């Protein structure tokens, strides 16, 4: 009886330790090279940055960047689709080595993971509105309901700054349905994603008339404390800006107007 109970205690303790300890690595850079695969978390629902091709592959600007990193390391690349709600956890827990997933560089996130400087891109937020609605300035939205996505960091800012009534849904499909039903006048989302959305014919009656707000730099991230990998990635991003790789990829994936941030960075590093 006693022995059985001791065994149970030992098992529980073992479980607790296993759950708490997590992966331990000496050096991520060495590790990636020795296993020959770089695992990168990217978006799969965010054209043109990361989306599914009809054959199921994930393609887009960020997967191309991931391939570039792998090429520099001389290893193969493995792409893991992530969403905003799990990307940081995946990186922390070691499921992915590198995160390139449209993540804005915020101080709160920088406390949890190492966000690589310089940042590689930037986007603001804007509003997708039916063309029938005549709104020309953000101030005109005061008190009006706007559909959004749970978890977007600008929901708070828009509510605070413009007094907009934000109605946040769990996914893009729900938010767009609610907008179609007239539960809100527009859809608040990343300007880059709205542009991608409006390329599709079913949204031809909608426009993005308001100026983008609060451009936030996007950072790619590695786990905290991985000095050599971090330095390697910082050099890589600087090189992307120098060679204008990001501007080239924008053109490759149909973005007609170059991002101001990418152009500025290109000018700065060239």
């Amino acid at each position: 009886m006693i022995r059985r109970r001791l065994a149970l205690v030992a098992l529980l303790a073992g479980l607790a330790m296993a759950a708490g300890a997590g992966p331990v690595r000496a050096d991520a850079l060495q590790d990636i090279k020795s296993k020959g695969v770089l695992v990168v978390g990217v978006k799969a629902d965010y054209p043109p940055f990361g989306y599914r091709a009809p054959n199921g592959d994930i393609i887009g600007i960020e997967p191309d960047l991931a391939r570039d990193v792998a090429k520099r390391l001389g290893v193969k690349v493995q792409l893991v689709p992530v969403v905003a709600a799990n990307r940081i956890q995946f990186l922390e827990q070691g499921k992915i080595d590198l995160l390139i997933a449209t993540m804005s560089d915020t101080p709160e996130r920088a406390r949890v993971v190492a966000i690589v400087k310089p940042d590689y891109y930037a986007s603001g937020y804007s509003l997708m509105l039916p063309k029938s609605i005549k709104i020309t300035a953000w101030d005109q939205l005061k008190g009006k309901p706007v559909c959004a996505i749970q978890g977007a960091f600008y929901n708070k800012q828009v509510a605070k700054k413009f007094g907009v009534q934000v109605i946040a849904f769990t996914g893009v499909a729900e938010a767009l349905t609610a907008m179609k039903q007239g539960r809100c006048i527009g859809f608040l989302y990343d300007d880059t994603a709205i542009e991608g959305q409006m390329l599709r014919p079913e949204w031809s009656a909608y426009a993005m008339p308001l100026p983008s707000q609060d451009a936030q730099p996007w950072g790619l991230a590695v786990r905290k404390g991985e000095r050599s990998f971090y330095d390697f990635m910082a050099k890589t991003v600087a090189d992307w800006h120098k060679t204008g790789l990001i501007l080239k990829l924008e053109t490759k994936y149909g973005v007609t107007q170059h991002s101001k941030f990418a152009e500025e960075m290109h000018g700065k590093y060239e």
Partner: protein
Amino acid sequence: MTDRVLPVILPLPKALRRDASSSRLCLSLWHAIALAAFVALTAMAADAATGQPTRASVLVVLARWSPLLLRGFGFNILISLMAMAIGTALGVFLGLGLVSPRRPVHALSWVLTEFFRNAPWLVLLFFMIYMLPFRIQIGPLSIALPDWVKAVIGLGLPVMANVAEIMRGAVQSIHPGQWEAAESLGFTRNQQLWQIVLPQCLKRMIPPWMNLYAILAMGTTLASIVGVNDVVTLAGQVQAAEGGRTDLLAPLYGYVLLLFFIYSYPIALLTQRLERRYAVHI
């Protein structure tokens, strides 16, 4: 039951004392037909409301996506069965702790039971999705924890607490005289529990246990909110794949309601019958 509450002279008037089971049983098929008709009706209403003959009729759309939706529903059932198995196994242990005469064991079991019974299921699911690692390492063994496994755990914990509570209730429903009688016959406490009390409890626990399962089966849809690809998520994806037609939503969700009803209603009927058969007469 009635006799115990207040003395009775005459039986209850008919209107108040219908035998509920008979009226319910003959309604079973009727219900399903009514619901199917209801889905078809919403489909036709949706067709009529749009009045665009170029688009596929709602019923055609439902038929086209049925295999996918049914597979999604199968996933819900799989999640419910696994959560029930885990929850029951753990719940029996917790229930034993609840009826334990040892103070610390009882107190700890009580705290766990109350916590997992009072926490909203959706909050528990969020908790598991965010807090559990995606992979756990036990020595050389590495177990992956995808979101649906976390959902199984998140749903299994409240099941555990409810099973424990059902067990406690059943044990308490055994007359205390039986414990004393067994003790006077020289049974140890463990023997009293396992050989005298628990065998009698088993029958009484089955109906509430089945009720719990029905509730859990409904609860599996919550997994869709935390990102598991269940039938509810799929219904949303079907709508998106059909070009975001809002007229499809009522028939699609109606169809999902129908699937759950067809699955859960027979269980409810069986539970009622067992409840009546195992009713405790003291």
